[in-house]
């Protein structure tokens, strides 16, 4: 599905492109609590031997290395590309909407000759951003991860189970003093489930509760 950079830029803006949670609107609660979908962020899964990753400098990542320390992420000089550790030989490259095709092409050519895999998962996942000082508490309702700031700090990314859905949670780097943001990276098909579960957990902090889409007729 290779295509020119120019084309993909225009594609990203097409109104016909729908994100997994396009039917949901951002929700707000008390004290700046906010939840919204971060739509169409470019997402590539890169698989490469851990030993190679340690020494590799990839220009396309603009200064973001492949973190080899578990559950860590790195950010490019420009702040527009992040590389998330998913496993010892697996990373997710997150970039701005519409840039993934070009990035994929550049990465491909830079890595050629090596044993690697690069898969576009931009639409496989979507992201739910949760900002506001109760966000850790909300996430504790959903997962067994230790969300305390002693053990979960900015830049960390952890895969876990949230309710009954597998997802990653990533604490974004935010400006000092700004509200912490946790980004859930969730499979598109389960996004509505998790969105509603988050909103339910946030109801104690003044957020309206969205309920999962249902009512489909299953019985003849």
């Amino acid at each position, binding site marked *: 599905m290779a295509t020119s950079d120019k084309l993909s830029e225009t594609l990203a803006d097409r109104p016909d492109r729908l994100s997994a949670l396009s039917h949901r609107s951002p929700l707000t609660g008390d004290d700046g609590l906010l939840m919204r979908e971060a739509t169409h962020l470019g997402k590539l899964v890169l698989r490469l031997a851990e030993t190679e990753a340690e020494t590799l400098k990839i220009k396309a990542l603009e200064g973001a290395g492949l973190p080899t320390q578990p559950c860590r992420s790195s950010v490019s000089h420009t702040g527009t590309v992040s590389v998330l550790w998913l496993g010892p030989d697996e990373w997710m490259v997150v970039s701005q909407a519409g840039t993934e095709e070009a990035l994929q092409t550049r990465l491909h050519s830079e890595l050629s000759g090596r044993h690697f895999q690069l898969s576009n998962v931009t639409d496989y996942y979507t992201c739910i951003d949760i900002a506001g000082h109760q966000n850790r508490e909300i996430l504790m309702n959903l997962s067994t991860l230790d969300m305390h700031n002693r053990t979960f700090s900015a830049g960390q990314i952890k895969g876990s189970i949230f309710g009954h859905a597998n997802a990653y949670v990533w604490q974004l780097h935010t400006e000092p003093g700004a509200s912490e943001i946790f980004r859930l990276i969730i499979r598109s098909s389960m996004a509505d489930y998790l969105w509603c579960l988050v909103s339910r957990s946030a109801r104690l902090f003044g957020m309206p509760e969205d309920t999962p889409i*249902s*009512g489909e*007729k*299953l*019985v003849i």
Partner: protein
Amino acid sequence: MSSKYNVFNLIRQGLQGHTGWQAQWREPELKSTYDAVIIGGGAHGLATAYYLAKNHGMTNIAVLEKGWIGGGNSGRNTTIIRSNYLYDASAAIYNHALKLWTTLGRDLNYNIMMSHRGVLNLAHDEGEARTLKRRVEANRLNGVDSEWLDAKQVKEFCPPISIDEDMRYPVIGGTLQRSGGVNRHDAVVWGLARAADALGVDIIQQCEVTSIRTDAGEVTGLETTKGSVKTPKIGSVAAGHSTIIADMVDVPLPIESHPLQALVSEPLKPLIPCVVMSNAVHVYVSQSDKGELVIGAGIDPYVSYTQRGSFDIIEHQMASLMELFPIFSRLRMMRQWGGIVDVSPDASPIISKTKVKGFYINAGWGTGGWKATPGSGHVFADLVANDTPNAIAAPFSLERFVTGDLVAEHGAAAVAH
């Protein structure tokens, strides 16, 4: 046997302050020689001994139990009785058991509270319905009572079930085995022990087998924490500990021991009239005569001998229960416990001779052994006595894992409970 149990003796004893009841079984010393030894004083082991004595005249035999009789899975299961299994071999053994259950109380002169209140197996989608209907059809031709109910009939038979079509797993129908039901597990253990004891069987509690002696590939005896015993025949009926016993004679088993949990609610006035089982949401529930909802939970996926499972299995179990029975939400879980189940690769039991002459194995009942108790004991006694499996036991040999002639009940999506 001590004084016969009946209403007249009960009244007579009532007037005497119940001072005349005798011990239900003796506490004999371990003898140095037996014609056969059964390892494991659970219901299957005691049933084996009972039928060995009753049907085969083998009365110089012992049941060795490392703890107290009925303290393993016999005292920990949810007592569901049914025989609506898919394959001929399974239907044969479970239906054999069901027939024995119906008169077992009278046979033992012990009320085992056998209640044929019906077992419902629910279907939540077309695939399940197809599998269950296939079972109903096979059951009918095998002479096993079983019928298909649509959702409305399910609701009529068990009113608290929600057949709301908006559920995540709506009930679209189910099968009913009217002759299925529940009974009282402890009573079965005690009744079998009392009857076996009366026939001369030595039931030795707190007696753990530590090794088995063989000579030229034949069993000659065993060592226990209470001394050594000479015997030419050993039947191992040790459920979760089967591997450990079989290891003593180097017989490898295709068995893994997993924790399985169960729980009961507080006692309540009559609420559900039958046993309800759902594979899709993993719910097995009935109500005991005491009023407790008896609920089977899931199996943990790892080997463990701790009789303790994971809390999240209980949580998931409760969520599943709410899906089927939303009105249970305000009721309370009163007690939870675990057992160690011996799971075989094809979810069917192993009733078999082994490469060691005189060493017989009865194991692999997984999560569903209770319902087979008298059938299991009956055919295993046959095998131990005759050194040849009868027609019912024959398909359950160890050999099948070598030849590939499995009795793959889990493949047929039969709930093993």
